[in-house]
């Protein structure tokens, strides 16, 4: 009798737990982390962030040693590949310097001020991918610096992702390789073929982004891809990556392409959050007024500004 009652109680406890979990999953999926559930997450982050930062300082060298131990073969291969790349880049540097000088002169002569000036905050990465299906980064700067959800995140090499959660003292970033991440991108034009735009998304089990361009788009391996003017998430012109593969879809209804991002997420230590929200061009794009003799560029606010595109 007592055994049956105990078994019944066990099933009752399991049922309560299952129903609680299903309710939590439903609420979180429908409403996101904006309500009380989100507040709990933010409180947990605030409690753990200082410890996470301290542990990170200690664990990073240990992690580097561990990586060296586990991936020693890859490290040697990477080292050889990087040496070759350095040699090739040295050769290109001179030509690039010349092109940059020429570009500056041309812009001066055309009085174009198309470089974006965006208020930004640079954060140290204190946590990454805590789970196996959670491609995120955690940084040590949060709402106190003006960061809010959906703000774009970049590194010197190119875009990194977007902010998905913020609390006082930290923020979580969804990286661009997450299958739930997407960004508007643009190809360079080739001769008579104009630049084309598309939506690039992360892929399951891959570090490349997938994108479908319209049929007839001229895309070549190695083409440099940037964010498109139609992108609501990122200012246009930010570097995304290079075309790795491009194949025509059967029936010639489009061009399937993959983009290898410029950023190496595993090597990042710092990232920059652009204090820019979609649909608010005011704080980002400089207002340029040209008189007969002078040009004045005004950016609202007075915090740090940086040049992120061209």
């Amino acid at each position, binding site marked *: 009798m007592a055994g049956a009652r105990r078994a019944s109680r066990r099933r009752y406890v*399991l049922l309560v737990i299952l129903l609680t979990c299903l309710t939590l999953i439903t609420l979180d*999926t429908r409403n996101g982390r904006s309500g009380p559930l989100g507040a709990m997450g933010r409180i947990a982050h605030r409690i753990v962030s200082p410890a996470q930062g301290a542990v990170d300082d200690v664990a990073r060298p*240990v992690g580097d040693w561990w990586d060296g131990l*586990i991936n020693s073969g890859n490290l040697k291969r990477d080292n050889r590949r990087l040496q070759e790349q350095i040699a090739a880049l040295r050769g290109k540097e001179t030509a690039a310097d010349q092109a940059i000088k020429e570009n500056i002169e041309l812009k001066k002569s055309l009085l174009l001020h198309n470089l974006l000036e965006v208020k930004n905050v640079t954060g140290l990465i204190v946590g990454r991918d805590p789970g196996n*299906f959670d491609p995120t980064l955690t940084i040590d700067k949060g709402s106190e610096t003006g960061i809010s959800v959906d703000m774009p995140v970049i590194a010197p090499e190119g875009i990194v992702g977007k902010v998905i959660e913020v609390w006082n003292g930290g923020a979580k970033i969804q990286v661009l390789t997450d*299958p739930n991440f997407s960004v508007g991108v643009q190809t360079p034009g080739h001769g008579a073929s104009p630049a084309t735009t598309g939506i690039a998304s992360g892929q399951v089990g891959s570090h490349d982004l997938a994108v479908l361009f319209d049929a007839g788009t001229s895309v070549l391996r190695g083409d440099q891809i940037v964010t498109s003017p139609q992108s609501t998430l990122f200012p246009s012109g930010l570097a995304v990556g290079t075309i790795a593969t491009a194949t025509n879809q059967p029936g010639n209804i489009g061009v399937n392409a993959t983009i290898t991002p410029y950023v190496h997420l595993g090597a990042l230590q710092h990232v920059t959050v652009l204090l820019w929200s979609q649909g608010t061009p005011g704080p980002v794009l400089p207002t340029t007024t040209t008189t007969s003799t002078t040009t004045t560029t005004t950016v609202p606010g007075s915090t740090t500004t940086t040049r992120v595109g061209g």
Partner: protein
Amino acid sequence: MTRASRLGALIFVIVITQVAVFPHLRLFGVVPDLGMIVALAVGYQEGPEAGAIVGFVAGFGFDLFLSTPLGLDALTYAIVGYAIGVLESGLFRSPRWLPSFLGVVGGLAGGLLFIGIGVLVGVGAVKGTQGVVTISYAALYDALLAPLVFFLVRRVLGRDDRVRDAWSSR
């Protein structure tokens, strides 16, 4: 310090370790599920009800740090902790390799459950064969760490045969 508070402290430490330390100690690119191993150990030692409750608490604690839906890990860990508690009652012997074996089996079962529910609620990262490969590696990692976690849980809870029944009679 009561057993419950000791267990609570262990869960807290486990969650912090999972979030702050193990992302630096990946094996084959994956991290272990320490919370799930704790649920397995408690379920094995204390019975299904305790396994489910501890699994829920550990999973919920871990969920707070993930971008996957809140409650997904809590549900997975609770079911696995409960199942191990039920299966344990049919075991007559406890060989030394049992924690590692439970780590692999629990890791695989929990991982598949996570993927199944994840697909239903739209978690993009779990789709495809890559998800199965990931949980297989994670289950092996769980097996490596399971003897240590089982040892810790045994030390925290102590050995008391009356306790197993106390979870249900409370």
